[in-house]
């Protein structure tokens, strides 16, 4: 195992974050605060509590997930897209490095960064609403699993994209709608019966449901189901990455 290489890639990626620390942290914190002010306080004060949880608190897990997903994808996709775009990837590809080690460096750094941001968002939300966390270990586990699997997903997008537009496309066109329709701001059983069925095809529903359960002990689908879905998603992403590396997809001719 080429530990040195994993270390320098990881550090290099973390350094990039550190150099742009303000953008990295300020923008998610600001947008989450806005959500809290608008949905949590302004609208939330007129909303009923859901399953006994005040609306302001109810939306916290969804908001954290929203940030986590967008951040993981953005970090990981950019992290690999940029060297590909600038041509510096030649060095990584010609180094004595296994595919797994490359992943460990890039995806590890992206996941770490979104994990930190997730923590910061959670802390920020503490300023606006009362938070209780019933199952902290589960909460952290869901957080970590989500960071890893969506960083992997971002890595795939970064490998796939051959221009900046494509890099933005998936997050904008797919992830944002899925998160908004994934029960971030409502409980699935508030929907008409038909849409409740449709929503079960949205993988983000399982993520948010499981994550919310770790806070309040309430969920739209069973926790086991949530966990299984995340692991399934992780497995699919791993399989795709493995295939991409094996065929040299857009990395090797």
């Amino acid at each position: 195992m080429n530990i040195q290489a994993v270390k320098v890639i990881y550090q290099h990626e973390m350094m990039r974050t550190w150099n742009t620390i303000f953008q990295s942290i300020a923008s998610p914190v600001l947008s989450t605060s806005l959500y809290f002010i608008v949905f949590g306080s302004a609208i939330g004060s007129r909303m009923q509590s859901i399953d006994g949880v005040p609306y302001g608190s109810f939306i916290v897990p969804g908001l954290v997930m929203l940030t986590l997903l967008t951040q993981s994808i953005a970090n990981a996709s950019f992290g690999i897209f940029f060297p590909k775009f600038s041509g510096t990837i030649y060095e990584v590809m010609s180094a004595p490095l296994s595919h797994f080690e490359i992943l460990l460096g890039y995806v590890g750094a992206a996941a770490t960064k979104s994990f930190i941001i997730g923590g910061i968002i959670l802390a920020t939300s503490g300023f606006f609403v009362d938070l209780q966390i019933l199952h902290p270990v589960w909460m952290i586990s869901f957080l970590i699993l989500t960071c890893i699997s969506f960083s992997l997903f971002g890595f795939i997008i970064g490998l796939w994209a051959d221009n900046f537009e494509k890099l933005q496309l998936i997050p904008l066109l797919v992830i944002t709608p899925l998160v908004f329709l994934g029960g971030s701001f409502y409980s699935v059983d508030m929907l008409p019966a038909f849409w409740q069925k449709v929503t079960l095809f949205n993988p983000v529903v399982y993520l948010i449901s499981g994550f919310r359960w770790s806070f309040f002990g309430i969920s739209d689908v069973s926790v086991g189901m949530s966990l299984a879905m995340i692991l399934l998603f992780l497995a699919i992403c791993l399989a795709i990455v493995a295939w991409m590396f094996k065929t040299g997809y857009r990395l090797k001719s």
Partner: protein
Amino acid sequence: MKNIISIKNLCKTYNTGHEALKNINLDIKEGEILALLGPNGAGKTTLISTICGLVSPSSGKITVDGFDIIKNYRETRSRIGLVPQELSIAAFDKVFETLSFSRGLFGKKPNKGYIEQLLKDLSLFDKKDNELRALSGGMKRRVLIGKALSHEPRILFLDEPTAGVDVELRKDMWKIIDRLRKSGVTIILTTHYIEEAEEIADRVGVISGGKLLLIEEKKDLMQKMGQKQLIIELKKSISSIPESLTSYDLSLSNNGLFLSYRYDTRGERTGITTLMKAINNSELELKDIQTKQSSLEDIFVNLVKESA
């Protein structure tokens, strides 16, 4: 001398269907400087990239220091440093950082002293904390050389190291290469210029259209390169070479107006003096005389013709 790189029946066809390498067989000796010459699109970069693991071979086998480049890629790649043709750099990285990064990528423990010495050798030490985007093109190329040498490779590939480089840097580069060679590093470089190969290489390979047309000791090749052509233009066309001149290796153009004579500038005697005397004694009336050095292009053309 032992072969450090051995290439057997290497072929590469890109997805586009383009056959970039056609059955290349090449052994590179440990410690030598090999120059690969060839026109644009010849396949030089493809060949280098394949050895370094950036391009997958379609068929054939490559070993580096006895290790297979695919099965034992860790062994082979850790021995190789590559300076690519393109100036690809991470614009926001700093000089010292980027060399340390490269060293780590190739699995070596950090070594501040070594990197600093390397930067001094490359006249980059005073720029060590500058961002790469703030460097000039020539300095960026030095950085790329530094990155390739950061992990103390035993084999160095330089893909057109002198493209866009001024005389000063070129001299520096030859000095560095000389020092590396003395320390036993094998160096493979590509170039379009025969003079460059002449200056530093031990052996020269010529690639064109994906084929390795020739691989020779430099001195043998230079012999060929030393050939000149003397062209004699006549006032009146003749139908055949006059009797008195047949003992010379002359050829007559189709229109009967030009006589040409090949000679070697490095030979003991060129034969020009006696030829001129003989022409003087013949009936021929001369219009003009010119000489032509056989250029790299001529050699290419000849080689390609021969191989076709």
